[in-house]
């Protein structure tokens, strides 16, 4: 109001006599030259309040603003500069040290690959570990390694997560108190001194199956130093029956390797070479190569007889579900028909109805003598193993399709006997120092041994372990174990090939290897495993050529020529009588209660025997057949479920299945377990998976599922009978990623028999849907002048092993969401493996279909995104721009394949420090609220394109491997440039069995499938699968 020339102003001026100061006006006018008008008296008086008023009324006549454009710019420039200064946060006072001498190979942004090997279940798989700036981020198979041939299994893929697991044991401890290694060594010294005096009396070592030559030698030295000491081995899912079977048949320990690449007919007697069995990666490769239609003679036929559905059964051309006890009867009857003397040819009543099946299989095997395989599964008793060996010998398969070698493990023993002896001695007070190298016997030893109770009787217990687990908790000393990616060691693969394990990173938590602990026991506590392993191999290679051979072994990932030589075998004399002596278990006889069930134990398909319980990738990985995540369930057949009055109900939430919780009682022990109704499961039996119900696994694994080890005893290690099931009336919610078993009449998985396909490929795979013409679109098509990426997936090869799913998760930083989110249907896997059943639920045909993004030419998702966050690339990729995504989820709704995944919450862990180095630096870690999906591993495409451009050439076919393709043991997934007619993917897409799914929607998917071909026995085809 101050400068407003109001009446008040004027009044004030008047009172001072200023309004019209005549002398001043005159003086002013006198000073002016020329014609000067005045508009009003105020102007004439040159009153300042007049000018203020005039400026407001007539801005144009106002004097120039004091704040000019230049001033404005100057001031803004300065304030922007200051704002810039302000944005510079104070740097934290942390010293960084640059490389004084940069490591030679490390170029930021360029990964390096190192060959190493992952030991597992008494075997090993050779891997190439990808290292970014010194941190391993991804595991690939080592193409030079016979167990891998470039592919991997789920465990190898997920092992890198275990390395960075924040729940891993991080400190050495004594009764829960943190101690340094030196304290352990000094406290151990007097004990060892005393032990030396007593020649090692009372010292016991318990390890898992040892297949490390160096460790075996160290153990030999240890036993030499302490002659009274004893070495026990126990691993819950080891080849207990396989070893016994080999002893029974041959009187010695031998290992059998099966050559699917040489065979025409395979019979798996409860064996799962394409699934859970050790060495499956190689078996899947060999099998899948024989399921391609190019060469008629090469097509392999697979029969499976099994007591619990497996991937092998799903891949089989004929599958026969039999109760566990019936398989031995079957094997005996078969053996009698295949020239194994002394077997009763008549079929006992329980399997009489499968006579035709058996006869046909026997004829087929006989017709392919020398080109067939009969393999017995680990679950089956030693007799079945021995019978399988005998059949193979009788058919002349030995040395051709079945290769016998000396055992891969360093010292094969009957592990159950070994552990029982140890526990007996512990209980008797004969053990005063027990050193456990890995393993978790408190959790996984047979329940009747009551290992935990026996352990409390041992005065000094030392446990080396990756996790502070159930056993560590009851031990005095706990030593954190180095992960294989942190260790120097060596191991033998299934065919005997030795790999040197070299570390990718220094132990994150100061972990020790078994080598170092054993060295400490033999009085050299400060020897590193590097020295120990090198010393062993120096002796092996010879000092002269050592460095060369060592370097080559490290570089190649294998020690050349270390595979075990084939070994001729002969059945022991008196084989027939040995076999006949234990009469085959007759279910009816053994079991007065007809209501009772038989029980089948199996290692869990994703977390194994429980050692991977704290691995979120494996916990969330859907089990191949049940598609359950995060826990196990007891599997029963639909008929058995009906008899017991058990139901599985779909709830109104995501993919939640409500199931009955039952009490499973076996040999006086019982556990509570949810029951899952499993099509294809034999009646009268129940399958439980080991590995769950952990109490000290870590934050991820503790408390999931039920502990089936509590039912497992030394007498019923894999199979048992007399199991009773009591309903509790309670319900339990299971998280399954696929709750619909059938294809609902949709043409998703196409299949034909190989014979029909060969007669007329197009007729065999004809289907109904109308496919629109390519130009039926409002929008102009895309042109691809350069590359056009595409994928083909051979359903004939795929056995549903899931390696691709975990590989994708590892490559693309896919988060784990937890059971509660899976229950809501929010799992994040970019690639899923769909499992469909066809036919009778008693024994359905099972097929798998890996489903990544289809990268459609007419992508329905692209049209509906309001912000162009999902867009078509010049090479035909359907790109996802995370930064741009606002999360309308319209794209997911409009995706007929439902391959899109949404971050409903903040799923990626941005907090845990140890998980940060795990991430692939080439892939964005997504935030909450954005959509994501398969990119065809665009980071790998771009990497290859850059490399090619630098060399001035095009990307070569096969140069880009997507993560799923690279991991696939079956080579089912092929990726490449479909603009290049010579590429492998183009040739696959040119096959008549190539088809796209839901093409009637005019999506024109880039990912196509090659129809599944089966090779049924014509004799059995009428009563197919029976």
């Amino acid at each position, binding site marked *: 109001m101050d400068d407003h020339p109001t009446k008040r102003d004027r009044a004030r001026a008047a009172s001072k006599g200023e309004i019209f100061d005549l002398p001043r006006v005159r003086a002013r006018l006198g000073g002016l030259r020329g014609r000067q008008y005045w508009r009003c008296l105020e102007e004439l008086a040159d009153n300042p309040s007049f000018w203020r008023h005039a400026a407001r009324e007539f801005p144009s006549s106002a004097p120039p603003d004091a704040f000019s454009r230049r001033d404005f710019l100057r001031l803004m420039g300065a304030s922007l500069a200051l704002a810039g200064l302000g944005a510079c946060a104070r740097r934290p006072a942390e010293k960084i040290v640059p490389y004084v001498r940069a490591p030679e190979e490390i170029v930021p942004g360029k990964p390096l690959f190192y060959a190493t090997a992952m030991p597992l279940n008494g075997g090993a798989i050779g891997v190439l570990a990808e290292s970014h700036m010194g941190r391993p981020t991804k595991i690939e198979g080592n193409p030079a390694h016979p167990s891998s041939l470039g592919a991997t299994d789920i465990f190898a893929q997920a092992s890198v997560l275990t390395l960075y697991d924040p729940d891993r044991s991080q400190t050495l401890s004594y009764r829960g108190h943190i101690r340094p290694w030196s304290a352990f060594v000094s406290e151990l010294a007097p004990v060892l001194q005393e032990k030396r005096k007593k020649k090692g009396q009372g010292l016991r070592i318990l390890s898992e199956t040892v297949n490390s030559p160096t460790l075996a030698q160290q153990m030999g030295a240890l036993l030499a130093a302490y002659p009274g000491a004893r070495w026990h081995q126990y691993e819950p899912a080891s080849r207990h029956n396989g070893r016994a079977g080999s002893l029974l048949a041959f009187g010695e320990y031998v290992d059998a390797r099966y050559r699917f690449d040489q065979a025409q007919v395979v019979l798996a007697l409860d064996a799962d070479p394409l699934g859970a069995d050790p060495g499956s990666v190689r078996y899947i490769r060999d099998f899948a190569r024989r399921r391609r239609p190019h060469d008629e003679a090469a097509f392999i036929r697979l029969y499976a007889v099994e007591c619990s559905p497996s991937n092998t059964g799903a891949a089989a051309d004929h599958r026969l579900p039999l109760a566990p006890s019936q398989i031995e009867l079957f094997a005996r009857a078969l053996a009698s028909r295949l020239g194994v003397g002394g077997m009763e040819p008549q079929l006992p009543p329980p399997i009489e109805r499968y006579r035709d099946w058996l006869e046909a299989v026997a004829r087929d095997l006989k017709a392919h003598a020398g080109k067939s395989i009969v393999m017995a599964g680990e679950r089956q008793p030693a007799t079945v193993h021995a019978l399988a060996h005998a059949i193979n010998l009788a058919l002349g398969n030995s040395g051709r399709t079945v290769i016998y070698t000396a055992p891969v493990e360093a010292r094969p023993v009957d592990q159950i006997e070994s552990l029982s002896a140890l526990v007996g001695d512990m209980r008797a007070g004969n053990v005063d120092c027990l050193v456990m190298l890995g393993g978790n016997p408190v959790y996984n030893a047979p329940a009747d041994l009551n290992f935990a109770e026996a352990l409390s009787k041992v005065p000094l217990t030392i446990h080396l372990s990756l996790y502070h687990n159930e056993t560590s908790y009851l031990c005095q000393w706990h030593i954190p174990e180095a992960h294989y990616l942190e260790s120097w060691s060596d191991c033998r693969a299934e065919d005997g090939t030795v790999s040197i394990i070299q570390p990718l990173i220094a132990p994150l938590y100061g972990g020790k290897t078994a080598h170092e602990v054993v060295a400490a026991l033999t009085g050299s506590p400060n020897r590193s495993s590097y020295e120990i392993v090198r010393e062993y191999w120096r002796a092996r290679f010879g000092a002269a050529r050592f460095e060369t051979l060592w370097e080559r072994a490290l570089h190649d990932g294998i020690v050349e020529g270390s595979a075990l030589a084939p070994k001729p075998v002969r059945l022991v004399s008196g084989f027939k009588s040995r076999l006949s002596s234990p009469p085959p278990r007759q279910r009816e006889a053994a079991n007065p209660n007809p209501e009772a069930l038989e029980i089948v134990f199996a290692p869990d398909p994703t977390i194994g025997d429980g050692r991977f319980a704290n691995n979120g990738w494996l916990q969330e990985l859907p089990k191949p057949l049940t598609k359950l995540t995060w826990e196990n369930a007891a599997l029963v057949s639909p008929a058995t479920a009906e008899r017991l009055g058990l139901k599985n109900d779909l709830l109104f939430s995501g993919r939640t299945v409500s199931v009955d919780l039952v009490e499973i009682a076996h040999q006086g022990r019982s556990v509570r377990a949810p029951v899952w109704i499993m099509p294809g499961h034999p009646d009268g039996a129940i399958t439980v998976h080991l590995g769950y119900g952990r109490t000290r696994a870590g934050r991820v694994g503790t408390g999931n599922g039920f502990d089936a080890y509590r039912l497992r005893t030394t007498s019923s290690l894999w199979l048992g009978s007399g199991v009773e099931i009591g309903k509790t009336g309670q319900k339990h919610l299971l998280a399954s990623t696929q709750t619909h078993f059938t294809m609902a009449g949709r043409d998703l998985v196409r299949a034909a028999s190989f014979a029909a396909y060969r007669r007329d490929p197009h007729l065999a795979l004809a289907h109904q849907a109308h496919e629109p013409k390519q130009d039926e679109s409002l929008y102009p098509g895309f042109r691809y002048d350069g590359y056009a990426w595409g994928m083909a997936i051979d359903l004939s090869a795929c056995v549903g092993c899931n390696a691709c799913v975990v590989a994708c998760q590892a490559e693309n930083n896919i988060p784990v969401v937890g059971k509660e989110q899976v229950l809501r249907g929010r799992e994040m896997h970019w690639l899923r493996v769909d499992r*469909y059943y066809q036919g009778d639920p008693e024994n359905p045909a099972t097929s798998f279909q890996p489903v990544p993004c289809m990268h459609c030419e007419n992508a329905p998702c692209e049209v509906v995104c309001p912000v162009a966050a999902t867009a078509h690339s010049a090479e035909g990729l359907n790109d996802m721009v995370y930064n*741009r995504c606002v999360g309308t989820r319209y794209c997911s709704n409009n995706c007929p394949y439902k391959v899109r995944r*949404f971050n409903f919450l903040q799923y990626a862990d941005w907090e845990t420090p140890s998980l940060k180095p795990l991430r692939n630096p080439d892939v964005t870690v997504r935030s909450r609220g954005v959509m994501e999906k398969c990119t065809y591993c665009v980071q790998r495409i771009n990497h290859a394109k850059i490399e090619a451009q630098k060399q001035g050439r095009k990307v070569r076919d096969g140069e880009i491997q997507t993560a799923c393709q690279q991991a696939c043991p079956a080579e089912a997934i092929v990726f490449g440039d479909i603009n290049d007619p010579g590429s492998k993917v183009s040739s696959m897409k040119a096959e008549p069995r190539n088809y796209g799914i839901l093409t009637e929607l005019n999506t024109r998917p880039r990912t196509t499938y090659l129809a599944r071909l089966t090779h049924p026995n014509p004799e059995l085809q009428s009563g197919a699968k029976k």
Partner: protein
Amino acid sequence: MASGQNERAARSAALPVIEPGHSFASVTDKISSIVLARRTPRGWLVGFAVSFALVMLLTAAIAYLLVVGVGIWGVNIPVAWGFAIVNFVWWIGIGHAGTLISAILLLLRQQWRTSINRFAEAMTLFAVACAGLFPILHLGRPWFFYWLLPYPNTMAVWPQFRSPLVWDVFAVLTYFTISLLFWFIGLIPDLATLRDRSRSRVGRVIYGILAMGWRGSAMHWHRYEMAYLLLAGLATPLVVSVHSVVSFDFAVAVLPGWHTTIFPPYFVAGAIYSGFAMVLTLAIPLRAAYGLEDFITMRHLQNMAKVLLATGLIVAYGYMMEAFMAWYSGNPYETFMIANRAGGPYAMFYWALLFCNVAVPQLLWFPRVRASVPALFVIALIVNIGMWLERFIIVITSLHRDFVPSSWGMYAPTFWDWATLFGSIGLFLALMFLFIRFLPMISIFEMRALLPQAEVKP
């Protein structure tokens, strides 16, 4: 107003649009007294308190949503759209009646619209406001909602104009703007009346500002009539366009159950249906509470009942055609979709929808039902619920089992879904309560024009 109109209206319907015995003053007194009353009625306070509590629930639900993420709702893959979209379509549909009554009936010179148009328009605005919340809240990253607008930006990216969601933004924003203008312009003469009659200084100032200097001069009236008519002309196509565009969100998708050409007309009919149901739901208690039976007469209620019946039949035809086409097309996915609706896990809701939207409104064929105020109220409520169920069925059952059986899943709302739905109802009611307390819910000057006294003698 033309002279013969009241006569014609009187001839066409036995029931009057305004009860006899009113004068200019009595109309003005009656309507303005509701606003200008010094004492707030106890019922209003209770009603407002309840709806305000629901608004607080909505606020809490939104705050939690923004902090944690859209995962607090029941949405998943495959059902990536849940309650948010159901509620959005439902509210937008309700928002249709206002414009229809104001604009189309104005152009059609239906005088009975006069006593209900004001609050129907207010209802439209509030419903569209509630609707507008949901598309923003349902985003994974709601703070970037403005990326759907074509604004100049350093990224040089525009929205993707092929997406119906972008069309939605334009359709809904335009509709809201026009509805707001239409409503406000219609209010100006009444605001001036309130300004003149208000006894408090605050009221005079606020109403005065809002009245924008209305003095009732002939020029004012001339301009007013012109603007109102023009806006009515503008708003008329919007009645059809908004819900057509909303239906494109579904019809453009490939999903069985969404991918249908019948959707635009079927959605518009559904919208009018639900809009009129909501007007009835609001009008019946209001006329009872404020004694407005003279102004909102049985004539109004019966006319609305007839509109309800007519649009209900169109909607029923839509349901029928959906099923028929699923069978007639021979498309296995469509066939499955209908079978799944009728016999799948959500069948209960489908049959409830048919009961609410098809069966119950058939009662309106009977004049006795149309003459019963309680019956009309109950039927209107049922139709409101039925229309919500319709959107639920369209969104959920189409998504939960689409093409690839391996990905089929189920959907169930969480507590926060319900909290947001009821919170939005609370917001709507709270706004309505504020509206009837502070603005004339019936157009005073237009009511006066309906009086016989208003007829200009030749």
